[in-house]
């Protein structure tokens, strides 16, 4: 990766989380990164309303965002043909880091899943990855979204991923929570022939 410096100035970011305090924390972190154009909403109905009126560059929302939930919302945004925000990066913030939950997020069209609790480093590195790594889009009858067959070669400066990380095997319906590195690997599993 040539550069780990991201210019967030003028990037329009939408944060959607029912928790006003958590939303404020993410807002504060983004301000620290240099972002100045940030809007917060509390539910998925508000997300759809603001998306119909305004163009955003990044959407960060809670996977359990009421009332529809993050997955349905992601799917709705990706499938709406006349939505100019259809291809914007969507990062889901989730405390449910079981493999099946991460896989569903990926299949709904999310670019990334960030495990809660969120730290400045975990957020920065994933935004940097989304910003600096070219990724094709797939338009198929059953899926519209970023290509799920990609491989994370490492975050800028080699951070955000552990040396011993392994590809995650396909699991049963429920399972233990995954660490952020395993979540990232799960997003990369398809190309490795595991999905």
């Amino acid at each position: 990766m040539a550069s780990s410096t991201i210019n967030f100035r003028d990037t329009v970011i939408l944060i959607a989380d029912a928790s006003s305090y958590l939303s404020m924390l993410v807002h504060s972190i983004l301000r620290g990164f240099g972002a100045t154009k940030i809007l917060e909403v509390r539910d998925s109905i508000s997300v759809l309303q603001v998306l119909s009126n305004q163009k955003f560059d990044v959407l960060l929302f809670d996977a359990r965002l009421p009332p529809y939930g993050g997955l349905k919302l992601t799917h709705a945004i990706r499938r709406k043909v006349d939505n100019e925000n259809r291809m914007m990066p969507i990062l889901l913030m989730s405390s449910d880091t079981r493999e099946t939950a991460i896989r569903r997020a990926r299949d709904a069209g999310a670019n990334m899943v960030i495990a809660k609790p969120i730290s400045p480093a975990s957020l920065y590195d994933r935004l940097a990855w989304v910003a600096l790594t070219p990724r094709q889009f797939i338009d198929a009858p059953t899926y519209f979204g970023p290509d799920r067959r990609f491989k994370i070669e490492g975050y800028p400066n080699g951070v955000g991923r552990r040396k011993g990380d392994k590809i995650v095997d396909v699991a049963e319906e429920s399972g233990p929570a995954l660490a952020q590195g395993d979540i990232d690997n799960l997003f990369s599993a398809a190309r490795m022939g595991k999905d």
Partner: protein
Amino acid sequence: MAETDDDVRIFPVETRFQQLAKRPGGIPRDKALAQAQAKIDEAKPAFDDWLNQQLDTLVDVVKGAQTQGADAEWAEAANRYCRQLRDVGSTMDFELLTFIAGSLSEILDAITMGAEFDRDAIQCHIDALLLARQKSYRGIKPEQVPELISGLRRVAEQLSTSLP
């Protein structure tokens, strides 16, 4: 119906975020992280008020279950407060609080999935949360209070084994 290659369109995309991000003049990562941490520190004074409000509401919701009954809907409502405590606690140096809220969240998840309402299990977690919110417990990690943690784990495991 199976998808064929003809049904699938693959195309490159460069989003506006990608274009903006690559402009010169950004804040280097180390400085950006330091600035973000400083912003979090600025938010810490408000955390105590928020924490007290969340916890008081959770206590009220739990009390409500003792008088009105505890079904899956109640467990999900209580869990909303619990998850918020868990998700924010670590960021604000309340790792012990995060652990306890996570354990209680698992219990509430179990109730949502059909486990019996165990008043004692929930009350001992509430008591632990009230203890952990005290300023003297800021910065305390779960491994520093092993007896408390093993007790909570035991209670949570008993409940999970009672799932239908």
